[in-house]
């Protein structure tokens, strides 16, 4: 019996590694293609081909042109900069802000905890996308604002997650020992509580970055995120959506497919990390 458990654990470990490697590879390819976009295309992301709008895929334009006469392939490559950049930056801000709030609320307890958690409750009384929609419509778009929107809608979940962990860690013997030996509150938080409360955050963050990309693209699709002519996958799909009824696939299908693959990269990475964390717990 014990032997099968060991074999099972080894297999889980290998499966998790496959997931992590595949996910990272997908993300690396997309990121590199976005960074080195000029190497793979002669067209600029907002450059207009005066000879044709809605040209089907062919020798001059590998994926055709859109309704503005811009090269779809080139926009597809450049769009990764905004999509990955905003999503990752937004989630990073959310992790830092949410962790800080959760740490303070969980460790101090009392009325600070009550007030912070009630605010989190109000934020979490909405589905994430609806919240993002409302905030984005009110603050307006622009890269900085979009990062703030992504951060604002995701931070409450991290605050709750970290708070729960902190409340467990706070009760452990090593924290009590540190407090009784006269360490300052900030010292205890920084050196003992924080590092031991971050495990779930590490697993959730990659998954979250994938969802953030979907949120961003959804906002852009509705005209509330990145707007054309800037190159972003959701905005490209939005621009191409009227073509679908006419049977023109090349303006909207490729950006959606790349978005899907990129989000899948984050999902695979997150799934792998989760599997590994669970295997370790068993």
């Amino acid at each position, binding site marked *: 019996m014990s032997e099968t458990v060991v074999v099972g654990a080894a297999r889980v470990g290998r499966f998790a590694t496959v997931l992590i490697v595949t996910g990272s590879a997908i993300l690396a390819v997309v990121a590199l293609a976005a960074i080195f976009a000029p190497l793979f295309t002669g067209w600029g992301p907002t450059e207009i081909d005066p000879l044709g709008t809605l040209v089907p895929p062919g020798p001059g334009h590998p994926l055709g042109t859109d309704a503005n006469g811009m090269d779809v392939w080139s926009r597809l490559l450049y769009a990764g900069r905004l999509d990955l950049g905003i999503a990752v930056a937004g989630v990073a801000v959310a992790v830092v802000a949410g962790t800080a709030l959760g740490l303070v609320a969980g460790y101090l307890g009392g009325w600070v905890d009550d007030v912070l958690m009630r605010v989190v409750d*109000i934020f979490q009384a909405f589905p994430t996308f609806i919240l993002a929609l409302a905030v984005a419509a009110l603050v307006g778009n622009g890269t900085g604002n979009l990062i703030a929107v992504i951060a604002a809608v995701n931070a409450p979940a991290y605050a709750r997650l970290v708070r729960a962990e902190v409340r467990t860690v706070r009760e452990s013997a090593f924290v009590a020992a540190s407090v009784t030996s006269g360490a300052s509150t900030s010292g205890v938080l920084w050196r003992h509580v924080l590092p031991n409360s971050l495990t779930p955050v590490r697993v959730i963050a990659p998954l979250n970055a994938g969802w953030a990309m979907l949120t961003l693209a*959804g906002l852009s699709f509705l005209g509330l995120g990145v707007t054309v002519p800037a190159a972003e996958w959701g905005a490209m799909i939005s621009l191409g959506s009227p073509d679908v009824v006419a049977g023109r696939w090349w303006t909207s299908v490729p*950006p959606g497919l790349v978005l899907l693959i990129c989000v899948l990269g984050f999902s695979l990475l997150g799934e792998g990390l989760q599997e590994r964390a669970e295997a370790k717990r068993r």
Partner: protein
Amino acid sequence: MRIVRFVVRRLLQLIPVLLGVVVLTFLLVRVLPGDPIRTILGPNATPEDAAAARARYGLDQPIVKQFLDYLGGLVTGDLGTSIQSGTSVGAEIGLRIGPTFELVVLALAVALVVAVLLGVWSARHADRAGDHGVRLTALVGNSMPEFWLGLVLILVGYSVLGWFPAPSGRVDPDTNLTPLTGADLLDAALTLNGPAFGSALAHLILPVATLSIVVVAPLLRSVRASALEVLHSEPYVAATAHGLRGRTLLRGYLLRATLARLPSLAALVFGTSIGSTVLVEYVFSWQGFGQWALRGLLYRDYPVVQASVLVIAFCYVVVFLIADVAQAVLDPRVQI
């Protein structure tokens, strides 16, 4: 009796949260940039016109008075008057919520059935080829931009194959459907209007498919995980060791225990599906609650924004409450 007490207590706990939502939306729409009056007046409006319009909607009053008026209206069930259309917000919601409910309920129902069937099957064949296939499909579904999926289905189902109607509207106007609830399929069934029923069904298939594909993925993963947990639990292993028939094991031991964990997941998924619905309605020109709320937001129609945010928050928290009650009914160990 305990359940009634639990529900009442939970409903009372909702009041401060919803009140917070009301205050927050009320303040946010007014503090942040954007002016609802400028969107209804033309470019040639004079400052006097603007002031008159402002006074008509009570926007010239001090903010505390505006808030108390609004709150007073809420208590009596009056959600205010839309600045864009000039009609009662409550009546507009009544018109728009039916089509959206039809879409969401059908999609969730399809997704739940598929998720339970596939998830349980996948767990019983864990770590074999079929299971890996199901899990990979679920991961892809989880990463799917729903608005793009809708467009792809339109491209294939309408533009290429021509099997489904164009993505505009919910029912063919020539079928003379008498609206009752706003949910067209239901209305057609109630008024025994055969052609309208067929037309409404044809219009529903693609958006319902879009929404349920996106919704099924997270459900499927959770059902599989909880079915796996049940399969490894002591009661199930004991039941297997006693040599019970396969059907008894499946129905009596596996399904029931797996389903007991489902309500809270379904509630969570309901939340994400509200967000997806806005996008799916937009893609299919569904003219439901989601599109209405989105327009209100874009035009800064204060009463519409306030009402739609409140309705969404209310639905969301009530669904969680229903899920907790359902869980308690299904799982005798849950103490509420």
